């Protein structure tokens, strides 16, 4: 508005007061009657703290400014609902819960993919990954790294279990969850073996590593940060 006082700077010229009245547009700055004007000037002069410029404050902060002294008007219902809608649309897509996952079969391996030979390349990949970590160090030092390693593609065997029918199950591990291993056996069967109450063996090179399932029941992501402590018993 201040630029309107300088016609050489403003892009638009000011509408004359007559034209404003004809168009039905009220004055952009409401007219101040003289009583209010003098009262306000005097009031500001008294209110300003000693030491500050009274005239300057009035000119910059109060003159030709519009102050809202009451509370602002509340948004109407329509406006509120509009805001809510927007929020809903912008909300992040929530994760599926377990029931939805099972129904949509998101993590299931389809029947035609359950062939042992298809996972042999994964096994080779895992072996080369192990070689990278292993790097020729001693098996004892390697154990610490193995605990945090990813075992997808490892050839895993159940050697000891409270349930006798799990003993002897061997295969390439294709999925690991918090509580189970899913392995694919040589006979193309996908077996889900709970980690609890079982002891597993992983063969790597000429070394055989034993994993105690009872103490290994963490998600893969959690396990990489987990500090494994010595337990009072490794009995099943």
């Amino acid at each position, binding site marked *: 508005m201040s630029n309107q006082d300088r016609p050489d700077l403003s892009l638009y010229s000011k509408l004359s007061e007559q034209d404003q009245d004809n168009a039905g547009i009220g004055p952009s700055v409401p007219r101040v009657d003289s009583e209010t004007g003098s009262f306000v000037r005097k009031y500001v002069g008294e209110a300003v703290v000693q030491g500050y410029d009274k005239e300057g404050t009035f000119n910059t902060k109060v003159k030709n400014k519009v102050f809202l002294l009451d509370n602002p008007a509340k948004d109407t219902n329509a406006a509120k609902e509009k805001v809510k809608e927007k929020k809903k649309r912008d909300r992040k897509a929530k994760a599926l819960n377990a029931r939805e996952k099972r129904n949509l079969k998101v993590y299931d391996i389809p029947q035609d993919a359950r062939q042992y030979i298809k996972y042999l390349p994964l096994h080779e990949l895992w072996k080369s990954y192990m070689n990278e970590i292993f790097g020729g160090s001693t098996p004892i030092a390697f154990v610490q790294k193995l605990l945090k390693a990813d075992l997808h593609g490892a050839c895993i065997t159940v050697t*000891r*279990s409270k349930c*006798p*029918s799990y*003993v*002897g199950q061997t295969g390439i591990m294709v999925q690991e969850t918090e509580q189970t291993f899913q392995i694919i056996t040589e006979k193309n069967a996908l077996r889900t073996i709970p980690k609890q109450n079982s002891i597993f063996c992983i063969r790597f090179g000429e070394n055989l590593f034993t994993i105690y399932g009872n103490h290994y029941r963490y998600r893969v992501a959690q396990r990489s940060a987990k500090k494994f402590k010595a337990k009072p018993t490794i009995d099943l």
Partner: protein
Amino acid sequence: MSSFLPRSEGPRPKLFMSHYSFDSHKQPHTRLIDTHPFNHTLQVFLPTHCSPAIHSTLVSRLLKNTFYYHAKVPLSLLLTPEFMQHARNGMIALSVDGGIDTHNIVCLDGNGSLVLALTKDTYEQLGLDGVPSKFSAKRQRYVVKIDLRAPAMVPKKPGFERVKWCFENTLVDKFSMLFASVDAEGNSLPIEFPSEISARKLTYDVDVTTLHDIVIPDTTRIRTIRHSNNSNNNNNSNVLQWRSNVSQLHEWIGMVAVGSPRVLLHDRIDPYLCVYNPPAQKKQTNAPPSQPSSSTGSLLRISGFLPAQAIQVIFQSLRNVLDDSASNVQWAHCCVWGFEDSPISWRDKEHQFLLSGENMYGFFLWSRHLVLSKKENQDRGVYVMLETVAALDEHQ
């Protein structure tokens, strides 16, 4: 401190006494002998000198053609076709290293069932289905039963293949076992072992001891349980009296078996040192009442891995000896001991070792030519059957 003592007494071994007749249609003695597969000693007590005739009747037929084997075998051997055939024929086998409550014991009862009594570690590594043992601490011992006579136990079937895999991969230990295979008449059948297993062929040990100057008690008292017509109380007391008589005689036989000097005629032991009183002797009509007379007795002992059929044969010959009037034997006692470390005592009944693992049975038999008084049971085929069962045993 009293809180550490056990509240209850705990299980105790039991002695079951029963009174039957050979002439009745029920034959509990046959059932008892047939269902007790593993026996290691048989002892016969005769109240007379064991003449060569008696000896030959009892023993000769037995020794002609009986033997058993002792070999150290892996369990996979039992699944080979030859051994499966033997198992179907009724072979018995028992592993003899270690106790039933500490080690793994394997046995083959005469019905074709392979019973493995395993420790927790072995069971968890084996991979075959089993049940926890009823008598051990919770989940410390397991019993696996495999029926080798089942139609599913044929090569190429998944059940058989799984058992075979387990015996070849997870339980490869060798067990030191005794094997015996007999046909129905009691003749032993030979068992062929593969060449890498050194099997020893053994025969039964027969031992005869003659006991001189012993005081033999009167056994006719236990032939009869008196039934009075008065009231129930009297009947009960008669039965109790009978029971105490039987247990006294049982104890006396035990004294004889260990060779205790208490049964001798001239035994004068201070009653402070030994409180044993032998049961009363039969009253002789000629001699004065309080004077015991000496007699001779003989103990015949056969030890080895005796299958039930062999016991049947000897039992039958003993009855023949008794019934033969020429031998003049009034009565006899026959006692059979089972293995203390066997997983089963009587067929399918689980057995454990607490302070002892006895599972033995015995018979009191009488001759058919006895002179019976009026009060006695007139049935000439009466016998008394005794079963001693360990504290931790399922047999009733």
